[in-house]
């Protein structure tokens, strides 16, 4: 039987559905710059979910633990080999995510004969000052998005939207207490709020149509 471009597209769609289904139950991840550095927050049952990748690089995600582990190991390997071969200063989030991880994920996702990796993740690079912190939100298909000051990853687009809304709402009120970058305590408080909103949105969103597949 011939394998047509239509089949290929259909396979990808099915793979995406498969992954999206499995991500829906995951605990959201919140990334937030604060004065002392950058905060990554999520909840867990047993598995550890937030990891150090390199001197100024960290990683957290939701999804299948062994898939998260694959991406984590790839990142750690790349970062350390590069850091040794060149210099620790040459290990950047842009190189780790953009050059090492994203193409590998994309390759794996678009190969019809491979099981897709189930994960959505946040990478953060702490800069010399909070304004220079960088967040990369990475999707299971290899797509990634650069963000400043804060970033989120959750099981559905709806949940991410709700979380982002809280993050940006607080900024525009311009209360001195909420001025960015926050102190660690305030950042922690805010991150928990954002996480709770994401968690709520996932529960509420079970009955909503999945907007991500329309992208």
């Amino acid at each position, binding site marked *: 039987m011939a394998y047509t471009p239509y089949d290929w597209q259909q396979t990808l769609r099915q793979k995406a559905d498969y992954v999206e289904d499995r991500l829906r139950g995951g605990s959201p991840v919140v990334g937030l710059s604060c004065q002392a550095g950058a905060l990554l927050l999520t909840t867990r049952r047993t598995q550890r979910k937030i*990891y*150090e990748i390199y001197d100024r690089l960290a990683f957290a995600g939701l999804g299948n633990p062994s898939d998260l582990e*694959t991406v984590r*190991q790839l990142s750690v390997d790349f970062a*350390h*080999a590069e850091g*040794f*071969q060149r210099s620790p200063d040459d290990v950047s989030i842009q190189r780790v995510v953009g050059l090492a991880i994203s193409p590998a994920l994309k390759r794996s996702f678009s190969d019809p*004969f491979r099981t897709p990796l189930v994960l959505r993740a946040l990478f953060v690079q702490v800069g010399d000052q909070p304004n220079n912190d960088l967040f990369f939100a990475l999707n299971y298909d290899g797509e990634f998005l650069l963000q400043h000051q804060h970033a989120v990853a959750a099981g559905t687009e709806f949940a991410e939207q709700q979380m982002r809304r809280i993050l940006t709402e607080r900024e525009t009120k311009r209360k001195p207490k909420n001025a960015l970058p926050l102190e660690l305590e305030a950042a922690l408080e805010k991150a928990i709020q954002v996480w709770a909103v994401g968690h709520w949105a996932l529960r509420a969103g079970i009955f909503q149509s999945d907007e991500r597949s329309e992208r």
Partner: protein
Amino acid sequence: MSMKPMHEAFHGDFSRLLEHKGVSISAPRVGEEEGLPAAHGTTVIALKYEEGILNVADRRATSSTGILYDEAEKVLVLDEYTLIAIAGSYAPAAEAARFLKHSFKYFARSQLQEMSLEGKLAEVSKVLSQSIPSVLQGIGGFLPIVSVYDRNHKQGRIFFYDVLGARFESREYGSAGSGAEKIRGTFEYITRTRGPFHVLPLEEVLKDALLLLDIAASLDPATAGLGGVLPLGKTITAAGVADIPEEKIRALQRKLLSES
């Protein structure tokens, strides 16, 4: 279509990772035969004291009979609880230290647990045995003194190696370098006549170390004495690695020079 797994497991082994990535870790081939003079000759000293270990080194890097550099750092931090003092050919030694630093960090981050003390010491042996070919050619050999704070046994420990990678633990002191060979007996004399170093406060062993360094300098042209660029000192205790403040060394330098 490739069914290769996305990720090769190295189980925290940094040299296997580098091999896989095609990164060479062999010591640079420098030597007088090639017309490139290798830097060598030095004195590094490790002494126990009541809280941990003190490392002191002169800062001279020599090349053949000349002085190459007078601000070399020969006591390097491998991690929070591990110091390495290097003597011998500087390029491969510095490269080995860089490798070890990355190797310990890589293990901790990839395996999500610290490398054990035994594991770290074996890693140093491995690095030394890798440089055997250049040692046999008469180039690129170096000798490290590894000082650690052993958190399980709550004590500082000193390890020294031979060029082939054999490891030995020292009870009270360790030293390496061309100058160290000339003063080896004095350590023994001090411990036999005055008693062990490990019961003494830092002030006292620091004074001993600087004096020993100055004596080594007077016998060995490749070692800088107290008269020139200040030696550097680091300590390692339950609280981790710390630099000895320059003022402290300077004050002792003045005192020792005026006494001599």
